């Protein structure tokens, strides 16, 4: 399977145009302070900056247009290299590149481009604002692309289903020595337990009742422990079955410290049965049981914050996650799997529902990302030892309308309702931030 490559990522919102990166590059590559010779160029004005830098494209146009074979993409590193001995200085490559990633260095008389300094780019540590990061593009793809997909050959989710993505990645990570509980909802609804004996799931899988997922899994795990066999007891449950009718067994299992990984896929309602309200449905949202009419416009109560309730069970591990931040999700999965060997691990993943939230399928990850960038959803993790801390802090959140506007379920909101939601986002952020401060204080003490 093909690999994806390393590159330098730029966060424009953090750049103030200081130019330190250009100085670092010029020093590293030319031994001078001449920023005109830097292979990274910050362009723009009025606090709006862009980056001119080689993207190390997968389908590099500079290579295609070069008549001399002087540019070539390295199969192992992905870096596009330039060979001075072959170059005829025609500069066609500077026209072929859409990103100004390769340009004439007038001092040398040849083109020059970023070679990522052999994997240790000088510009990245030079940035005082953290606007530059050296990242592996498709890190997740590289990491897990070769692992066995344990939901095969297929699942019958809606087009663009976020939950299917989540399920596939979760089971790849957890691996085959797993017993998987999928209480009624979208997860079995898309065929994980199957119909009349046909299933694509390659680990033992079952429908618990909507009400007893944690209890049944506890029994399974305990018996294997009794006979000395190591398995991972994994639940992938919807928010309705966890926060409403299944909450008692969830709370009981957490209190007893049953050894399992309980993942909640929060699509904020009973989406499988036709998009009815759950206690995780946010205020103002349209659902089929909180319709928009003359006297009521969407849900009139705020969502229950289930992950914080689980923190108050002092579970071995609690985290929130989002499929827009897969590296964060994978790191949390690793810690949750480990924690589930000796205690109750709980991971709450926000999973936008293209069908029930009413937005185009291609916006799925964008909606998930906007939820985080507006602080509508906060990414954090908790252990009893370390307390709660943010894994992706958003210090300067976007207005919540940036999140709400993408979705049909919020289209009817009036100003007062939006104001209510924004107020609750701020209130919740403060509440969680206080917990995080307490966590830090506790560690220091």
């Amino acid at each position, binding site marked *: 399977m093909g690999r994806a490559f390393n590159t330098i990522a730029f966060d424009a919102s953090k750049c103030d145009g200081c130019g330190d990166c250009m100085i670092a590059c010029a020093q590293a590559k030319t031994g001078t302070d001449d920023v005109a010779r830097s292979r990274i160029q910050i362009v723009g004005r009025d606090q709006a900056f862009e980056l001119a830098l080689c993207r190390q494209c997968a389908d590099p146009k500079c290579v295609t247009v070069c008549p001399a074979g002087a540019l070539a993409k390295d199969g192992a590193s992905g870096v596009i290299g330039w060979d001075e001995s072959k170059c005829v200085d025609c500069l066609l490559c500077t026209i072929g590149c859409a990103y100004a990633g390769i340009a004439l260095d007038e001092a040398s008389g040849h083109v020059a481009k970023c070679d990522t300094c052999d994997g240790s780019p000088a510009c990245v540590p030079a940035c005082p604002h953290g606007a530059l990061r050296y990242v592996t593009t498709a890190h997740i793809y590289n990491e897990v692309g070769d692992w066995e997909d344990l939901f095969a050959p297929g699942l019958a989710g809606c087009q663009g289903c976020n939950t299917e993505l989540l399920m596939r990645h979760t089971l790849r990570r957890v691996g085959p020595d797993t017993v998987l509980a999928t209480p009624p909802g979208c997860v079995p609804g898309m065929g994980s337990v199957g119909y009349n004996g046909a299933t694509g799931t390659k680990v033992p899988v079952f*429908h618990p009742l909507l009400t007893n997922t944690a209890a049944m899994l506890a029994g399974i795990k305990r018996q294997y422990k009794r006979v000395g066999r190591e398995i991972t007891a994994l639940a992938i449950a919807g928010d309705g079955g966890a926060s409403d009718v299944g909450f008692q067994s969830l709370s009981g299992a957490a209190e007893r410290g049953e050894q399992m990984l309980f993942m909640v896929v929060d699509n904020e309602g009973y989406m499988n049965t036709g998009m009815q309200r759950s206690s995780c449905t946010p205020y103002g949202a349209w659902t089929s049981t909180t319709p928009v009419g003359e006297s009521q416009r969407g849900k009139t109560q705020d969502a229950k914050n289930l992950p914080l309730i689980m923190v108050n069970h002092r579970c071995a591990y609690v985290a929130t996650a989002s499929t827009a931040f897969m590296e964060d999700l994978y790191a949390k999965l690793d810690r949750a799997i480990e924690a589930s060997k000796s205690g109750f691990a709980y991971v709450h993943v926000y999973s936008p529902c293209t069908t029930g939230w009413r937005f185009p399928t291609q916006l799925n990850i964008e909606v998930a990302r906007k939820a985080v960038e507006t602080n509508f959803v906060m990414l954090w993790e908790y252990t009893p030892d370390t307390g709660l801390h943010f894994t992706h802090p958003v210090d300067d959140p976007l207005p919540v309308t940036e999140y709400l506007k993408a979705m049909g379920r919020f289209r009817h909101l009036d100003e007062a309702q939006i104001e209510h939601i924004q107020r609750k986002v701020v209130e919740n952020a403060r509440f969680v931030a206080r917990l995080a401060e307490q966590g830090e204080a506790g560690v220091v003490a």
Partner: protein
Amino acid sequence: MNDTATLEAPVAARAKPKVILCEGNEAAALGVALARPDMVAVYPITPQSSLVEHVAKLIADGRMDADIVDAEGEHSVLSVLQGGALAGARTYTATCGPGLAFMFEPYFRTSGMRLPIVMSIVTRDGITPQSVWGGHQDAMTVREVGWIQLYCETVQEVLDTTVMAFKIAEHHDVMLPVNICLDGNYLSYGASRVELPEQADVDAFLGDKDVNWHVALDPLRPMAVDPLTGGAGGKGPATFVRYRKGQCRGMQNALAVIEEVHADWARRIGRSFAPLVEEYRLDDAEFAIMTLGSMTGAAKDAVDEARAAGKAVGLIKLKTFSPFPVEALLKSLAKVRALGVVDRSVAFRWNCGPMFQETLGALYRLGRHVPATSFIGGLAGADLTVAHFHRVIADTEALLTGPAPTTPVWLNEND
């Protein structure tokens, strides 16, 4: 599996059994310990509480090696055990009344998944009217859910039946959950002389457990357990019918297995109980009264006194209520011309007792009309005394010459 030496040893030649004095709840706990379950899940409820307390103490004292799960409610109690059984565990719990009602969702499912879970019902009347005392309303309310239900008459029978229940449940021709019904208050708290079987004899009797050969959640043999089935198309309807028919077949198979297991127990342990239907002074009887559970002792005394007074009365007691032992019962019913059925609960829809109602169903196949009266008594802990049974006997005898009432006789109405 069979220990021939034990089989052939005459009962009289055995060592004197260990005898203790204990209540029905403790006897049940001792029976559970003898059966060596892997997992016990508990949640307390009156009048079951002392049973699970005894189990917890046996485990705490190291006299029983089982994983005990103190679940947060009866719903989770049974759910934990379902998980355990799917992973291969022999499992046990006990409940009653409101606890059984709360448990109903996983309770229905246990028989459908063919999990051989054993559960005592320390029977309690249904609320409301609010009450914490004995009655059969709880167990009767769930009689159509695919569990085997065995009613005990004595504390000794509670202990012995608790052990036998595991063998019945785990029999490959059955694979169904079993309730041992012991009367709240009268058996749960009634202290009595009890003989304890030897552990080695019980081990030989039960043999190795084989709980999840048919359905398992095990990474070594992955399968999808209980996938969606039914509906109107494809293989759905036929698949669903096959599962349901299998449950019914298991229930019918259980009739023979219950008899076989009781006979085996008698051979190995030296105590026998009527497995399905017990007859008492019935062979030359003109009419009979029919009982269930601990009331039978007072009823037998009343029959003895009535016999001494020249009345041709006998007694039929059911031990196995589910599956309903139609054929065995018909043999007994064939001997009499009138019947009085005493229930400790009600069948609301028919304005009678549930055992009366079901017995009428069996009587249809007798091919001859037997007049019968429904007696309802012992509700919510009320005592059923010899005097009550004299009334039952008199009213039933009256059926030989007079009309049968169309409404039940409420025995404790004026107590």
